């Protein structure tokens, strides 16, 4: 898709030329920068024509939230304020999105859990807001360290969940996220997760398009539900409100609504495939019997293990999941066809991704699934930890 002249002429309120998502992500010339995940998020949001953002301090996402505030001060974001706590913030975000704003917020660990009641409310309200989750450990005991246990709590909230591996992916994903979430046939909230500190605080080289271009404005009137702005006829339930009526229709309405939210998440698949260039990314030997399935920075470490194994003459491959909700069942099955041993390295104690992978492949794959290594509480995942699992579980001399 090429940028049309008419698109060139259309500016947003901060004077940026509004262009297609395809143009920003795939066509616009890019230059190299060196920045942290927090800094790159500012750059991404700067190019997203964001109407509203609400913030609250919690390590490690605070800096990202400050920087979005700076965008507001610079005139790029419509409205911005600090809320009272994460429960309040996520409700304020809901209010902004209901009233027709493209809305972004950020949180981490205990903040996510404090806000919890809001996430199913977000999806049930069909608002396409974006939460940037910079995952950290959950108390008690007190921790601020990287750990992605909190993601497991979000899996069944009805929100989409994408997982970025590094600074570059955070930039591209958080732009694509609005576009996919706002599709009228999707229109559910999206959580873009990264591992806190490892991505938020790590400086990496990153390729960015010019900041004089930005996404087109969000059109709330294309939404499947009317925005709460008194500009469209309100939903009418005057005769038979289903709320709190004890009858079959009220139960069926609620049940079908929940199914519909999950269906909407599934309807995001073709869009996500396009903008993320696939729901999974694969590196390594196509026909390898040793397969690592991971997301986020764990997939980076798995790629290191793949390199080490290659040096030893042992074939392996890494399947990096980029979307967790929707879960890429088909892609995972296809990518693990050759697998005899699947390893799921994770940054949490419960192994939520292992459970997801095991359930997804149940009765479909003969491979032995090993939910290790698991590191947590801020511990790092040295490549040796991954290799040790391989050597303990695979008789590599037999030509795995």
């Amino acid at each position, binding site marked *: 898709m090429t940028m049309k002249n008419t698109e060139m002429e259309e500016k947003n309120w901060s004077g940026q030329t509004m262009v297609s998502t395809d143009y920003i992500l795939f066509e616009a010339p890019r230059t190299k920068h060196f920045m942290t995940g927090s800094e790159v998020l500012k750059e991404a949001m700067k190019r997203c024509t964001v109407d509203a953002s609400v913030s609250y301090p919690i390590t490690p996402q605070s800096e990202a939230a400050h920087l979005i505030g700076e965008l507001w001060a610079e005139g790029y974001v419509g*409205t911005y304020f600090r809320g*009272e706590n994460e429960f309040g913030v996520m409700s304020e975000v809901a*209010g902004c999105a209901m009233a*027709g704003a493209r809305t972004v917020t950020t949180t981490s660990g205990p903040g996510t859990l404090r806000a919890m009641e809001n996430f199913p409310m977000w999806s049930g309200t069909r608002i396409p807001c974006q939460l940037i989750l910079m995952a950290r450990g959950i108390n008690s005991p007190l921790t601020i360290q990287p750990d992605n246990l909190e993601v497991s709590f979000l899996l069944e909230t009805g929100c989409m969940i994408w997982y970025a591996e590094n600074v570059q992916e955070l930039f591209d994903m958080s732009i694509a996220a609005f576009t996919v979430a706002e599709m009228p046939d999707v229109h559910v909230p999206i959580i873009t997760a990264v591992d806190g500190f490892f991505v938020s605080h790590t400086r990496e080289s990153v390729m960015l398009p010019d900041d004089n271009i930005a996404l087109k404005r969000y059109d709330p009137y294309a939404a499947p539900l009317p925005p709460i702005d*008194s500009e469209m006829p309100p939903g009418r*339930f005057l005769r038979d*409100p289903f709320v709190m009526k004890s009858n079959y229709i009220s139960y069926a309405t609620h049940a079908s609504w929940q199914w519909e939210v999950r269906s909407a998440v599934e309807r995001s698949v073709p869009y996500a495939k396009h903008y993320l260039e696939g729901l999974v990314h694969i590196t390594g030997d196509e026909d390898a019997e040793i397969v690592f399935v991971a997301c986020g920075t764990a997939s980076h470490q798995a790629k290191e293990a793949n390199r080490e194994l290659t040096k030893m003459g042992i074939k392996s491959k890494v399947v990096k999941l980029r979307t967790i909700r929707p879960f890429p069942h088909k892609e995972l099955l296809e990518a693990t066809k050759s697998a005899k041993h699947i390893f799921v390295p994770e940054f949490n104690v419960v192994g939520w991704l292992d459970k997801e992978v095991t359930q997804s492949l149940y009765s479909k794959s003969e491979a032995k699934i090993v939910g290790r290594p698991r590191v947590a509480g801020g511990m790092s995942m040295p490549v040796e930890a991954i290799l040790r699992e391989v050597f303990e579980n695979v008789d590599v001399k037999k030509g795995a």
Partner: protein
Amino acid sequence: MSVDIYKINPEFRDIMPQEILDLEDNATWQSEGYEKRGINDLTDKKEILEEHSLCAGCPEAAALRYILAALPTPEETIIVNSTGCTSLMFPHIALHTVHSLFGNQNAVASGIKRTLAWRFPDKTKDVVVLAGDGATVDIGLDYTLQSFFRQERITTICFDNEVYANTGGQESGSTAKGQVFKMAPKGKVFDKVPMWELAVTSGVAYSVKLTASAPKKVAKVLKEAILVAREIGPTYIHLYTPCILEIGLAANEGLWEMKEQDKDRFVDFKYVSPEAEAHLKQCKKEGLY
């Protein structure tokens, strides 16, 4: 867009229910020339509240009718609700309303108000919160007071029935000391939370405590609160709407109970900041109420 959104496509008139037709034909919208909507309209105009599902004689239902009849610009008003008896009435309101969670009403309203101010800088859009005492004084206290601290331009109305009525009659922060309710089987041990005073301390420009015994008074207070919220700052109305069921009264005894309380726990309280007072004087001069 204003009242146009309530106009029915002529092609569909023959299949529309009567109450929808009435909204177009006989409701009082400000932009249709009803500059001074009010209680008197209740006698012969279409109400914005359709038949409701509350108990017979419920003062809360009456109070909501007074409030909806008195909204200065219903076609540009968004009402944010919380969980409780009021959430049973909300689906019957013809305006844009929101129910999202129990207690988060002022947070949601803050987001809506700020976004509407951003999206429609040249329009007046009123955001009104309407929630019970549990939602306002207990579970949502933080979000209510924080919205006052932040000076959100919204009007918050607490329908205080001094009890968690919808869940079956449990003590709330708003219950009077000594009252026996569920979860306080020996009687409540602490005083009724003086929310109207907390509102003042927290920075509202206008705070009134009253009962719903006098409809015109409720209407006047509502108008003042909305006019002040448009220009000056947050406003708060603490309105006694007793739960006749939970305090053992008959359907025709709600008014009597409110009149009793006009002299007791709900004796008049009114705070108007000097800026709000000056603004209201100006509004009166301009004939706005």
